[in-house]
C-alpha cells in the first residue's frame, strides 16, 4: 500500500508539470493581457513599466522558468488583476464552492441511491418507472435552463427564495459557512438543487442497473436460499457490491462539481471559484488560471486516491497488487 501511494505521488508530479506547461503556453498564445489592463492613453513608457511590473517583458521560457522555480517554493505567482497571490484568491473562494458541491453531492447521493435501489428492486411498478422517467428528465435538461426556471418560479413568481448570491456566513473552524443559518440555507438550496439534478439522475441510473445485475448473481440467490431477510440481502450484500461504480462516479463527479460548476455559479451569482476562473480567462489573468488548474489537477489526484482507498475498503481484492485475482 505505501508503494502504491508513492507511485501515485510521482505520477501526480508528472501530471502537474505537464499541465503547467500546457496552460502556460495556451494562455500565452491567446495574447498579451497588457492591452486589456493598461489605460488606453498609456505611452510606450507606461506599457514597458507595466510589463516589467508583471514580468511580461521577459521571453516566454524565462517567464515559465521563473514560474517553475517559484512554484517549487509554493508560490504560484500574483494575480495580474488583483496584485495579490493567486492561490490566496482561489482559496478565499474555495469554501463557497466546496459547500455548494458538498450539499449538491449529498442531495444527489442521499436521494439517488435509495431511489435507484427502489427502482432496481421494483422495475415494473409505476413507482419504478416514474423514477426512471424522472431521471431522464434530470440529465436531458440543460443546467442553465433549469437554473433559470428555478429562479423564475421560486424567486420571481413565488418570491419564496432569493434569486442568487450567498447568504450570511458563520465562521466554523475559520471557514465561513452558510449552512449554519436558515438564511444561508435559503440562498443555498436553489443552486445546490440545480447542481445536484444531473448527478442525481446519474446515480439513480447507476444504482438501478447495478441492483438489477446484482439480483441475478449467485451470491444473492444463496443469501436468499440461506434464509436471510430481504433487508439484509439488499442492505448488505447487494448494496456493498453496487457501491463500487457509484463511488467511482461520485468521486469523479465531485471533482467536476468543485472545479467546473461555473454555469450554476454564474446563474446564481454564487461567489465561488468557477466564476473566478471564467473572469480570469477573459481577462487573461494567467497566474490565476494556472494556479486554478493546477489546484484542480491536484484535487482530482487526491480524489482518485481516496476513491481507490475506498475501493479497498469495499473490495479487499483491490490494492493488494491484484493478488486476489
Amino acid at each position, binding site marked *: 500500500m505505501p508503494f502504491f501511494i508513492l507511485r501515485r505521488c510521482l505520477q501526480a508530479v508528472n501530471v502537474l508539470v505537464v499541465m503547467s506547461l500546457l496552460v502556460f503556453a495556451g494562455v500565452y498564445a491567446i495574447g498579451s493581457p497588457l492591452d486589456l489592463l493598461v489605460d488606453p492613453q498609456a505611452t510606450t513608457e507606461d506599457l514597458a513599466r507595466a510589463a516589467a511590473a508583471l514580468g511580461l517583458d521577459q521571453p516566454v521560457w524565462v517567464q515559465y522558468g521563473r514560474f517553475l522555480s517559484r512554484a517549487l517554493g509554493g508560490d504560484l505567482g500574483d494575480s495580474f488583476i488583483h496584485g495579490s497571490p493567486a492561490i490566496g484568491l482561489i482559496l478565499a473562494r474555495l469554501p463557497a464552492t466546496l459547500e455548494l458541491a458538498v450539499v449538491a453531492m449529498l442531495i444527489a447521493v442521499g436521494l439517488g441511491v435509495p431511489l435507484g435501489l427502489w427502482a432496481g428492486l421494483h422495475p415494473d411498478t409505476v413507482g419504478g418507472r416514474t423514477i426512471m422517467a424522472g431521471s431522464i428528465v434530470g440529465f436531458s435538461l440543460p443546467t442553465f435552463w433549469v437554473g433559470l426556471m428555478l429562479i423564475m418560479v421560486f424567486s420571481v413568481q413565488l418570491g419564496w427564495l432569493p434569486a442568487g448570491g450567498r447568504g450570511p456566513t458563520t465562521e466554523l473552524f475559520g471557514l465561513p459557512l452558510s449552512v449554519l443559518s436558515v438564511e444561508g440555507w435559503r440562498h443555498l438550496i436553489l443552486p445546490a438543487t440545480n447542481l445536484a439534478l444531473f448527478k442525481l439522475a446519474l446515480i439513480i441510473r447507476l444504482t438501478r442497473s447495478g441492483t438489477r445485475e446484482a439480483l441475478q448473481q449467485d451470491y444473492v440467490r444463496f443469501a436468499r436460499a440461506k434464509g436471510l431477510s430481504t433487508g439484509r440481502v439488499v442492505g448488505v450484500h447487494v448494496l456493498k457490491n453496487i457501491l463500487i461504480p457509484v463511488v467511482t462516479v461520485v468521486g469523479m463527479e465531485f471533482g467536476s462539481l468543485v472545479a467546473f460548476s461555473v454555469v450554476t455559479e454564474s446563474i446564481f451569482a454564487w461567489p465561488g471559484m468557477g466564476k473566478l476562473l471564467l473572469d480570469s480567462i*477573459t481577462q487573461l489573468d494567467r497566474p490565476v488560471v494556472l494556479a486554478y488548474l493546477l489546484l484542480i489537477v491536484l484535487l482530482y489526484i487526491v480524489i482518485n486516491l481516496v476513491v481507490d482507498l475506498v475501493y479497498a475498503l469495499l473490495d479487499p481484492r483491490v490494492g493488494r497488487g491484484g493478488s486476489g485475482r
Partner: protein
Amino acid sequence: MVQLASGTQFGAHWVRVLALVLGLWTLVGTTQAAALKIGLAAEVTTVDPHFFNTGPNNAFLHHVFDSLVDVDADGRLISGLAESWVAVDATTWEFRLRKGVKFHDGSELSAEDVLFSLARPAQLTNSPGSYTSYTKPIVASQAVDRYTVRLRTATPYGPLPLDLSSIFIVSKKAVEKTGTEQFNAGPAAIGTGPFRLVAFHKGERIELARHEAYWGVRPEWDTVHFRVLASDAPRLSALLAGDVDLIEAVPTADLARLKTNPRVSVTTRTTWRTLFWHLDQFRDRSPYVTDLAGKPLDRNPLKDVRVRRAISKAINRQALVERSLEGRAVAASNINAPGIFGYNSEIAVEAYDPAGAKKLLAEAGYPEGFGLTLHGPNNRYINDAQVVQTVAQLLNRVGIRAKVETLPLSVYFGKARASEYSMALLGWGSLASDFTLRSIVGTPDADRGWGTWNWGRYSNPAVDALVQSALESVSPEQREDFARQAAKLALDDVAVIPSHHQLASWGLRKGLKYDGRVDEFTYAHEVRSVK
C-alpha cells in the same frame, strides 16, 4: 350611563394605547435605515483608488473618495474638493481647496493630503493599470497654504483639470505606511466621499454607510449594498425578485419586456461610448483586402479617400441602430458623443447613399468593388457581432465583397493593436475630444502617447498640429475650438468612419429615480426615491 361612560373611558384608553403603539410603529418605520441595494454588472477589483484604473473600479471609488475636479452627469467639469482652479500662467495651475472638508475618520482635508495623493500613483510599481497617465504631466507640485495647491507642467497643458478628475484624494495620515491590502481590509480606505466603506468582499459584495459629515449634497441612503452580478440573467432576476433595487446594464434582449413590467422602470441615456471603424491607411498591400477572386490586391484601396467615403455612405446607420442594435444606440457623426467637450455639431451624420457609394468606388477605379474582411469583437459592445455582420451586408450591396470575422476581446485587442486588420471596429469613451483624437487619429508615436489606438495609422500633420494646439490651450474656450477644428479636418478626410453612440440602461424598482450618467457610472448618491 355610568357603564357607558366607563365604556367610553375604556375605549379611549385603548385608543390611546393603540395610538401609542401606532406612533411607535411609524417612528420605527421612519427611523428604519434607508437601504439601497445595487446589482453591478462588473467586478470591483480593489478599494485602493490608485491601484487599477478601470471603469467599474472608478465608478465604485467615487462613492468613497472625491477628486479635486468632479464630473457631472453630462460629462462637464464641476468643482469637487477644489472649489475653483485657474491657470496662473501657461504652465502653472492653481487649485483652491474647499474649506472644512472632513475625512471619514473626522480629520480635515488639507493641501498635504492632495500632494500625497497626486504623488502616490507613481509609487505603486506593481499596478496592472496605472493612474500615472493623469499625473505624469505634473513636474512640480507645491502647497502654497493649507487650502491652495500649485501644479507645474513642463509645457502648457490644458487638460490637467480633466486629468485630475480621475485622481482620488486619500488621507495621508491613513495611507502613508500602508498598502493596497489595507484599503481592501478597510483601515486605509479613508476618503471624503459621500459614503464610507463598511465591508469589501472581493467579487461578491460591498457594503457602504453614509458619511454624515459629507461636504456635498447629503445622500438619501443610510446604507448602500453593491452586489456583483456580472452575468445578465442573474442580474435581471435579482431585480425582478426584489433582491436588489437597481441594476446597471439591463440585458438588451429583455429591455422591451421590462418596459411593460409595472414593478420596474428603465432609464436609458446616450453615453460617451462611440463606435467607429478603423481603416488600414499605411500599407500598400492590406492583409484582408483582395480582388473579387480572393487574391491579394496589389494596391490598397483604403488609402483612397473616395473609397473610405464610399464605405461610409454605404452604411445605413439608421437601420443599424434601429434593427441590429435594437434602438440601444444613436447614429454618430463625431468620434465623441454629443455634449462631450470638443464635440463638433457642424459635422453631419453621413447619409445612407448606396448610389453615391458606387459612383465613388467607380471613380476610384473599383467599379466592380473588391474583397474585404471586417473584424470586430463579439463580447465587448452592445450586439457587436451583429453590427459587424450588418455593415458587411451593407457593403455587399455596393459591390464590396465583405466577409466577417469576430473574436473575443482578449484575442481581438492584441491583434488589432498590432494593426493586423484592414477594417476593424473600436469603441471609445472619453470626456474630451482632443484626447480621443490624439489616441485615435494622431500620427502614431508611442513614446509621446500619440496614436496609441490608431490601428489604421492615419497620419495628417495638420490634424496633429490642431490637436497639439488644443492640448496646449489653458483657456477652455480656445481649447474646445481647436479640438472641433481638428475633428472636422480628420473626419472630412474619413480618418475613421463614425458608426454610433451607445445608450446605457438602468433598471429600477418602482419608486426610485436615476437619471443615468454619460460615463455609464452608477452613483448611489444620485439615486432618489419618488412618490
